[in-house]
């Protein structure tokens, strides 16, 4: 898996990366601390995945989160994870939708 070109070109996407589910770096775009971010993304996906299982949501597919000035989306793509960090945070919803399509997730 690589960073989807559609996502990489969007001006709202300030940085992005692909990591393994264990948090290993696969690809990094405009992110100086890719190794650190990949570790956190891997931890988030495994922790939230477990939480989703506990809540009966099924396997984790995407996580979106917002801070005051920036938001982020993590999408599961097979054995890997794609993460995009977005400004302004209000754009997270649209980026999430694009990312889901780019990694081949279809809504029921």
């Amino acid at each position, binding site marked *: 898996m690589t960073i989807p070109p559609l996502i990489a070109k969007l001006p709202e996407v300030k940085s992005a990366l692909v990591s393994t589910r264990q948090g*290993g*770096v696969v690809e*990094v775009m405009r992110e100086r601390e890719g*190794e650190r971010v990949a*570790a956190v993304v891997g931890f988030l996906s495994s922790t939230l995945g477990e939480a989703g299982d506990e809540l009966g949501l099924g396997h984790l597919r995407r996580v979106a989160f917002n801070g005051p000035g920036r938001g982020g989306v993590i999408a599961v793509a097979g054995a890997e994870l794609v993460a995009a960090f977005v400004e302004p945070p209000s754009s997270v919803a649209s980026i999430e939708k694009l990312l889901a399509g780019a990694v081949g997730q279809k809504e029921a």
Partner: protein
Amino acid sequence: MPESRAYKTPDLAGLVGAKLGNYRLERVIGRGRMGVVYLAQDEALLRPTAVKVLSWRAAEANGHDPVQWFLAEARLIARLNHPRVVQIYGAARQAEHCYIAMEYVPGPSAEAAVAQGGPLSPERATDALAQAAAALHAAHRSGIVHRDVKPANLLMGAGGVVKLGDFGMALGSAGPWTGNAHLRVGTPYYTAPEVWSGEAATPASDIYSLGASYFQLLTGRPPYDGEDLAAIEQAHLRAPVPDPRQLVRDLPPACAALLERALAKSPRARHASAEVLLWDARRILQDLASMRGSASAVPLAPAPDGEPAPAERRPPPPAPAPLARALGLVRRPFADVDPEEPYRLDPLATVRRMLLGAVEDPSTMLVTLAGSGRSGRGALCRAVASDLGASRRVLSVSLDELPAGGLLEHLCRAAGAPDEHAEEARANALVERLSEERRAGAPPALVIADAVDPASGSFAAVARVVAAALWTGAYKVVLAGEPGLAAALAGAGVDFPGGRAVELEIPRFRPEETARYVRTWLEAALGRGAPPILLSADAALLLARRSEGEVERLNCIAENMLMLAAAERKRVLTTWHVWAASDGERWAETRPLSEMPRPPAHWPPEEVVLLIDACRRSAGLDPWPRGASPLD
């Protein structure tokens, strides 16, 4: 008037550089009423020697002919041949000086040790008491009363050896001054009541003095510490024996009971002989050892997966303050001082199980455990000693902490075997002592020796210990050291038939085990509610490479990584932390966070990328991302 009264009193302290016989006097190491003691070099035998130069004045003050008095003292000591008595090499008169050349004990006196480091632990103080009692017993058997037993005359040599010195006031029962026996000599703090009353000093007086010295070793002060001589005298004569537990609260009751008896006012109420005192001291030493064992024998539920049940539950060491404040760690996560914890995780738990199984196997008498000095070998030995200490006698020793040739002496002392002078006699005494326990129905004792080096001077003693175990079956042996111990033993002539010896090797961590180990101990060390500390996947790979799979190296690097993270106030450990942390010894105790290295503006440099790539390739991963990445 005796002939000696005509002698002039020379300047005894001004003889540095002078030569008396073969001895070149180098410096003053002690002064007393009887003379001055120099450290000297024996220029014939090229060994350090203690040379005591007699003070005429002291001899004359006691009404003695100095030369006769001096020769009597020398002959008196020369009658004693005991490993716990300072040995005499010779005595002579040269011009106006009479001197005795003696064994030099290169350590402080017990008095100096207590003055410098405070009271000794009950084990160490009782061990010193036992050794001094053995020396006194030998003296009394030869008809010699020491008359000046005190902490300053207990010389503490290498490897915990204690020797009784300065028989300068000793009174031989067949000596020429029996008629002056009522003269009060000795040091007030340790002098027995009957001697204060003007009676003759006897072996029981020495026992009292040794008891008073033991009191000082345990508490840091003598039993009766009056403001003047009269007050001290009255206390010795009439005051009840002070309870040392009022000064050292957690002192074992057995130590206080021994003191109560040794310091009894009536000589008849004391230990009947120095040998009885020695037995009493040995019993306390065994009780102290078994108290440690019983504390470790708290029954615990079986651990999952057949892991050995932990025998000891010591409170975990707290996290160093910088790690506690910055990262919320409540205990030290990578403390190898605790023998228990790293050995509950594979691969170390597996080798620990194998080692325990081999020791429990009735047919196995010898286990060799191979591993480097950083493999966790020492901690594994401590863990196994802790596991087995409750069920059998375990004599555990690290050879790098003993002087060359000190192994058998140490084992004999630890086993309560009698002191012997020759190595062969010591081995026999050890076997006899441990065989007695076997005959009484105890399981075979276990001798664990770590840091065994076939090239060292102590290896002959190791081979002797192993050969005796294989020959007699009185005890089992675990030897831990670099690989090749079994071959070295065979080379030293130790013949072990098949099935009686087992060779084990401490395995190294595989990379995936490294990450699991770090994560497990980080989780265990975090306080309740503290956010997690993460280890990046590439950091785990690099850590496995830089620690070379050795647990002690891994512990050191991992704790240093935490220090770096604490300085940055970050909770993700990255390849930079591994890289920077592997360059030093443990930082947690020595360096403030403000002095920690900080990450560079661009990380990683190309040479590190190449190394990380190599780690990733060996783990079946693609190289570190390049191309569109701003890392380039």
